[in-house]
């Protein structure tokens, strides 16, 4: 599912948050959205998910213009993976994942056998089927993030929009979650994720979108656009890109100097 954003403008009152944002990502790509706090990453995502109505511009997902879609139709195209927060109520993992089926059920329908199978498949796909009966309050942050990912898969949308999926995760869980996401893009999912780690973009993301003060300051394939200069512009710190030789081949990393 490719996504195209043209001249998107959004402001809260007189305060512009996004200005003339344009980019287009191909199907099966994984795009890192980089930018300092307040750059407009979350606002961009909320516009793409139809949660905010931009004052100007157009978003096209696949062949459909976002403005004409109902909530349900949009949910079938794009799924949102929020940051895993601690839950108010203790749902089981399976019940949480089942909530992803709402856009494929009619108003009075409740998930049945078929939906349950779909939810179990999604859990198996991410290697966490064993957690199905556990309460989401009693699993680790990394597992909870995977559960939310499973819920997005059950939604059967081909575009996944993720708000800092690795925030609050330990080092190991960050890598595990990102590898799972990379595996999904190989199966044709298109992923947009925001992150505060240039390393994640370098390692996992085919594309990088850099936002600064609500404007696109760089967009393109990661190895083309992610430079020391960009890091300096975005974050105001000196950094150097280094290439490390590892047994698995060369790996790029961004090191602050």
């Amino acid at each position, binding site marked *: 599912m490719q996504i195209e954003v043209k001249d998107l403008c959004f402001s809260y009152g007189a305060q512009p948050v996004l200005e003339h944002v344009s980019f287009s990502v191909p199907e099966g790509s994984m795009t890192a959205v980089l930018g300092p706090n307040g750059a407009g990453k979350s606002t961009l995502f*909320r516009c793409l*998910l*139809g*949660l905010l109505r931009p004052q100007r511009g157009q978003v096209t997902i696949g062949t459909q213009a976002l403005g004409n879609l109902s*909530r*349900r139709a*949009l*949910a*079938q195209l*794009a*799924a*949102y993976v*929020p940051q895993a927060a601690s839950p*108010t*109520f*203790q*749902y*089981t993992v*399976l*019940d949480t994942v089942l*909530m*992803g089926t*709402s*856009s494929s059920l009619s*108003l*009075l329908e*409740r*998930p049945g056998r078929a939906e*349950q199978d779909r939810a179990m498949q999604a859990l198996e796909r991410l290697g966490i089927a064993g957690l*199905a*009966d556990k*309460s989401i*309050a*009693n699993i680790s942050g990394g597992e909870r993030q995977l559960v939310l990912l499973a819920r997005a898969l059950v*939604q059967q949308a081909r575009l996944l929009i993720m708000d800092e999926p690795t925030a609050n995760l330990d080092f190991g869980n960050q890598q595990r979650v990102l590898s799972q996401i990379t595996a999904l893009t190989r199966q044709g999912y298109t992923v947009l994720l925001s992150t505060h780690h240039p390393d994640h973009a370098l390692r996992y993301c085919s594309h990088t979108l850099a936002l600064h003060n609500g404007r696109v300051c760089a967009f393109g394939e990661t190895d083309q656009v992610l430079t020391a200069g960009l890091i300096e512009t975005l974050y105001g710190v000196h950094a150097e890109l280094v290439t490390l030789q590892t047994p698995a081949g060369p790996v790029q990393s961004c090191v602050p100097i």
Partner: protein
Amino acid sequence: MSRQTGRYGLRFLILAALFLALLLASAMLGRYRLSPAELAALLGLSDAPVRSGASNVLFQIRLPRIAAAVLIGAALSAAGAAYQGMFRNPMVSPDILGASTAAGFGAALGILLGADYFGISLTAFVFGLGAVLLAYLVSRFARASETLSLILAGMVVSSLFSAGTSFVKLVADTQEQLPAITYWLMGSLAAVKQRDVLFLLAPFVLGLLPLLLLRWRVNLLTLGEDEAKSLGVNTTALRLVVIVCATLLTAASVAVCGMIGWVGLIVPHLCRMLFGSDYRRLLPASALFGAAFLLLVDDIARLATAGEIPIGILTAFVGAPMFLWLILTGGGRRAD
């Protein structure tokens, strides 16, 4: 999965059995005691002889009161469960949007104007609905987030009507009206008649049925606005349905029996511990548990002493310690 479903199923059966036992016991117990044989005969199940007044006691006095306790217990608990989900807060009770205080004001006004019992119920019901409508309209035009402004508007409306009630008390006749208002506000099922049960029935069905049909979707509201919307839910419409239904249930309950606190807060809490958070189980379980709970408390209210203890006082006596216990043991957040 099947193991878990089985466990919940068993608990539900036990709850249903307890409820049935309570129903039978409540029908027989009282100052005019009915034997099991008499009860069976009165219900047309046998030909055993019955005393002449027995039929009157059962059908005119006891059964309407039992029916009211069951309906109101179920209504308040279901409304509480629904509101807790919608506001994503297990500490919310059904009167959060001011339905109860406004109904209390309506009843006080009815008493002041010399209305009969049915008229009092009617004014209470109308004011209860009106208050929530007012709170909802205010929240629609507010700048803050939908949920927050709804709660704030509910608080304002609620305190406005509670001031109104105080004013009515102030100007009421101290010989007749003031005691009547005070007693009514304490909540009681003592004066319930068949007509009140019929009055309760329509809002009960209209309020509970949509909630039961949509109960799985109430789960989605607990995720919060953005997540629910991104899952394809029309949150504004769903929220409105929940508010209308829960308000119908609450206002009708308060209109018939006065202020009965704690039930709508405690029962969903306990049911969440027994049946989990999923509204597919939580909502029916809360309704059944609430029905059984209020029936039990009302039995205590009429049987424990020679006089009547207002049921609103008893629910507070039972509810407050239970709530303390929940806070101290962290019941709502216990691992499963």
